């Protein structure tokens, strides 16, 4: 090394396989930090080299271990050059095989100030909420934002219920369900948040439409319809042609909403489109002639015909619905790799941080 080499820029490159995605890692930055800063959906959790979520196979190059990987990785993994990108800086350009890395490059989340401009009742306990922002937000269909008010520290997460527009928009729409005794939604449903300033962070989340031409099986429960509407309307806007079944799980006919909007999606959809509302608490012997029961019980009946075509499944709703629908889908032979879920939790039942 020459005397002045230490003054040269020390940034190096990492290439993620199999997508061949390359980004720069600056001196003093870990691979994970650099990837997240570039907006890539890097798999990770703890960031201190403990959980193993970011574990990757190093194909070539040299890294510096910031902690002893032996604390976490197994002997076989160490022998086969597995590393923890959250605790690795680069000594040379590096090529990594990161199986859970997705090529998708997301818009990095930013902080916005927003105001609730309008709320529209969709059902007894679900509102369409229109929020104006202090600047344009770009997002991908299926993602979500976090809303926070001064009185409550923990932000609340809600998915976009509209498709994205080019170069972003300073107005977003969400579907928000009233959570019994929920602090945030009680204020909202009592009308106390009208015109109130909110902190808005987004876009967030890894729920978006993956490439492909295979059929789509979309299953939404309650306000979980929001990201699916966003994805389906965006699919139409992008002239993507795929067959689709949209399942909508609700309690009674009164809990079904945006039916007109779904009808328009059906009309504009390129490919076949089937809308299947499934009601779990609709009184017997009344006018309802559609499917009854929990939404996952209807999957087999309608979606079985697509199984051989390797369909992609998109799920959004309460954890119990996601778990049940995932079980049905995998029992039908759908690979877990093709099942994408957007779990939502209210603050009384937090199991998974989004």
């Amino acid at each position: 090394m020459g005397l002045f080499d230490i003054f040269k820029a020390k940034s190096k490159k990492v290439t993620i396989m199999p997508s061949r995605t390359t980004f720069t890692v600056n001196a003093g930055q870990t691979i994970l930090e650099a990837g997240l800063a570039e907006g890539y959906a890097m798999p990770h959790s703890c960031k201190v080299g403990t959980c193993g979520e970011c574990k990757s196979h190093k194909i070539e190059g040299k890294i510096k271990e910031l902690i002893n990987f032996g604390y976490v990785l197994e002997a076989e993994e160490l022998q086969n050059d597995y590393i923890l990108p959250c605790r690795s800086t680069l000594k040379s350009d590096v090529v990594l095989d990161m199986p859970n890395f997705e090529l998708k490059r997301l818009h990095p989340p930013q902080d916005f100030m927003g105001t609730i401009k309008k709320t529209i009742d969709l059902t007894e306990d679900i509102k369409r909420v229109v929020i104006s922002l202090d600047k344009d937000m770009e997002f991908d269909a299926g993602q979500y934002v976090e809303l926070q008010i001064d009185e409550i520290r923990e932000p609340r997460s809600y998915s976009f219920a509209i498709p994205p527009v080019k170069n972003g928009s300073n107005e977003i729409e969400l579907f928000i369900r009233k959570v019994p005794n929920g602090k945030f939604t009680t204020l909202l449903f009592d009308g106390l948040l009208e015109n109130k300033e909110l902190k808005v962070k987004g876009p967030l989340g890894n729920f978006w439409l993956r490439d492909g031409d295979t059929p789509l099986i979309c299953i939404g429960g309650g306000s979980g319809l929001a990201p699916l509407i966003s994805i389906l309307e965006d699919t139409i806007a992008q002239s993507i042609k795929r067959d689709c079944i949209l399942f909508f799980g609700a309690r009674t006919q009164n809990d079904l909403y945006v039916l007109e909007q779904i009808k328009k999606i059906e009309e504009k959809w390129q490919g076949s489109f089937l809308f299947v509302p499934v009601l779990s608490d609709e009184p017997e012997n009344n006018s309802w002639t559609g499917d009854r029961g929990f939404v996952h019980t209807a999957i087999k009946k309608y979606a079985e015909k697509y199984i051989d075509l390797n369909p992609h499944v998109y799920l959004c709703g309460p954890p119990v619905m996601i778990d049940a629908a995932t079980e049905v889908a995998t029992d039908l032979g759908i690979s877990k790799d093709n099942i994408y879920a957007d779990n939502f939790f209210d603050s009384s039942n937090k199991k998974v941080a989004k």
Partner: protein
Amino acid sequence: MLDYLKFYLAPLVQVFAGVGIYMGGDYMWAGLVTLPVLAILDTALSDNFKKNDMHIRLLADIPLVITALLGIGLLFLFAWKINTTPDLTTLQMVGGVLSLGWVGTVCSLPSTHELFHEINPIRKAIGIVGQLAFFDVSRHISHNNGHHLDVASSLDYDTAKRGENIYKFAIQTGWQNHKESFKLEGNALKKRGKSVWSLSNYMYKALLILVVFYAGIYYVGGETGILYVLLAQGVARLWIEGLNYFQHCGLVRVNHSPIQHYHVWNHLKPISRIITFEITNHCDHHQDAFMPYYEMTPDKDSVRLPGALTCFAVALVPPIWFNFVLKPALKEWDNRFANDEEKKLARAANKAAGWEDWIEKK
């Protein structure tokens, strides 16, 4: 700019203690006197929810580095003073031990913790070596690989069980953390096909740090210097476990479930936040370990304990601590934040501690 400057409170307290040691006599108590003074002041002030207006990490790290290094420097000063001042009374030397035990706790622990989480190798090394102030150069291993994943769950050595007093906890967790670090290091070597006794074992480095340090202490302070420095480190060690104690005491979390902001206690009095480099406001740190201390957001919606400085004193008297501080806080925490599974754990923990079942029925 004021936000950058306020974090020089910790090195200022260390300098104050250092001047006391240098002057000798009854001034040896100077460092300890800062405890009641700051605690009373802190109690009189309101909780502070303001986020720091700081953005330059290099500038924000300067007081951390100074504090970590001063923590070691004070021990050398103490050894020198004892060696060169034969007329110090036992009580004055006790004052010195307690003063350095106190500043080693309140200043050195938070600064070294922040530094050993850093990526920069020099700052990280200063963070590791700076832990000498409380007789520990391997805590970063068990801290990262245990506490960060397990906080508030039954697997965490740093979370005291309900009903466990500070004395039992301090001795137990200190020993368990050492044992865990040794075990993790040994297993890591085995996985790489090396013997536990291989020279790659970090514990040799730890031993080397200790040998060099005590050789230096012997050089300036002789055998008596080593003895009193060990006492000061020992007091600091027990007291830092105290900080651990009231940061997490009695909280519950289902093992391996996601960590939420409410899984640590918050002490948001202004002096507590400043002198501990925001470690009393560290719920964000468990959710995002990349986040530097000055970016953490105070949790307005939390159940708060009194200021950390008050807790340092009150926790030493278990009946007062349990009845007037911890139980009311846990009662609120259980009913406001715990999810259904955590409520079950809390109920069992209360029963095991012989405490009443205060969880409200739905």
